[in-house]
């Protein structure tokens, strides 16, 4: 299979158009299932009561916010290496969704923090890294918006995304060493999950749903970008 066949906007556009509705449908089904399991099936948390249920939106959004930045940096690197037009378009199509999830993660986190910690905002390591991540997304979007020539905007944004991706671990660890109050990670690859299985299922369903949603809106947005540029 020739991977570069779909690297051109002309061939990718119909494919994206065909795939987007299916991903949107999958997103709706998975999110509905996830919300049902999360709000009606999963038991009430012994310590936090009902308020913990916000994690079904908060945690998947936080995962996606970080993952989308990595995907964006991947497309950016691909674009710089192979000089493909589509890569830059994909990176700029992903950025608003990533920023949206970062904002949702911060917003739901502060709503969860008020009853649980007694405060909307603490300068805790993960909150601070997430905030910096939001700034990185906004910087990327602002840089691309300020440059009129789309080729230059793509390449400049790509370089910024890569520099940001290199910096994210440094920022994260500097903030972790600086201060931490956030509870430890509940889901970890090495230890397995330390939560009830229904809660885990709800969270994974929501994460998959958010994932499908991101793919669907990115495909739609990339088609808009193609039309704006090639028109």
């Amino acid at each position, binding site marked *: 299979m020739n991977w570069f066949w779909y690297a051109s906007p002309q061939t990718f556009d119909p494919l994206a158009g065909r795939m987007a509705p299916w991903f949107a449908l999958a997103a709706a089904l998975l999110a509905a299932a996830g919300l049902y399991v999360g709000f009606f099936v999963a038991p009430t948390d012994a310590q936090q009561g009902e308020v913990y249920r916000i994690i079904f939106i908060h945690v998947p959004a936080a995962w996606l916010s970080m993952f989308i930045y990595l995907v964006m940096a991947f497309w950016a690197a691909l674009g*710089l290496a192979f000089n493909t037009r589509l890569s830059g378009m994909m990176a700029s199509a992903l950025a608003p969704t990533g920023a949206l999830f970062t904002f949702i993660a911060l917003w739901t986190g502060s709503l969860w923090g008020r009853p649980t910690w007694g405060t909307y905002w603490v300068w805790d390591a993960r909150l601070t890294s997430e905030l*910096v991540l939001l*700034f*990185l997304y*906004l*910087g990327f979007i*602002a*840089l691309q918006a*300020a*440059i*009129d020539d789309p*080729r*230059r905007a793509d*390449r*400049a944004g790509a*370089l*910024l995304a*890569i*520099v*940001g991706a*290199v*910096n994210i671990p*440094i*920022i994260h660890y*500097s*903030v972790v*060493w*600086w201060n931490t109050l956030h509870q430890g990670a509940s889901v970890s690859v090495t230890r397995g999950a330390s939560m009830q299985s229904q809660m885990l299922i709800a969270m994974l369903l929501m994460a998959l749903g958010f994932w499908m949603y991101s793919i669907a809106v990115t495909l739609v947005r990339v088609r808009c970008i193609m039309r704006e540029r090639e028109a």
Partner: protein
Amino acid sequence: MVEAVLCVVRRDLLLAWRRRSDIATALLFFIIVASLFPLGIGFEPNLLRAIAPGVIWVAALLSSMLSLSRLFAADHADGTLEQMLLGASPLGVIAAAKAAAHWIVSGLPLALIAPLIALQYDLPAALTPVLALSLLLGTPVLSLIGAIGAALTLGVRGGGILLSLLVLPLYVPVLILGAGSVEMASAGMGGDGQLLLLAALLVASCAFAPWAIASALRISME
């Protein structure tokens, strides 16, 4: 290659010296920002002592950022940058030299004047060397990272504001480690760990930033 570095550094320093007021403005900005905080917060000595490292570091960040937009702008305007791109010496080397010159003009003076600001904040004398050392290690990182942003925003609409949006989030580790070293030292735990991490950041950015600056310049000059 060494000749090219020395040549670029000497030229940039000479240009900066011919327009001494620019250096003085950035330095003055640093002093004024640092002096504004007690006016806004109040002059309670314990409070001032507690916020001194953070305030001085934030002021240093802003002051170093303000002079960034001048880093490539003049060379871009008169075509020198184009000749540098076409020249025989590697662009990364020239970029590193320009960042070094920027640091000598805008970072080094901050580290030298910081002990004076520390006096205003009644910082204990034992902490002043830590503060100066943290600034000496941290401000070159600011110049190197900032140069990437300056190269990316070259000739872009609203470059100055945009530059701050791009560069300030990337400055976060330097700020945390720099101010943290002084705070750790004042807590009696020694700021060595933070200073070593700052030095590591400096080494890493010396190794990687020149590449990024060079590719950013190529993108902007296409």
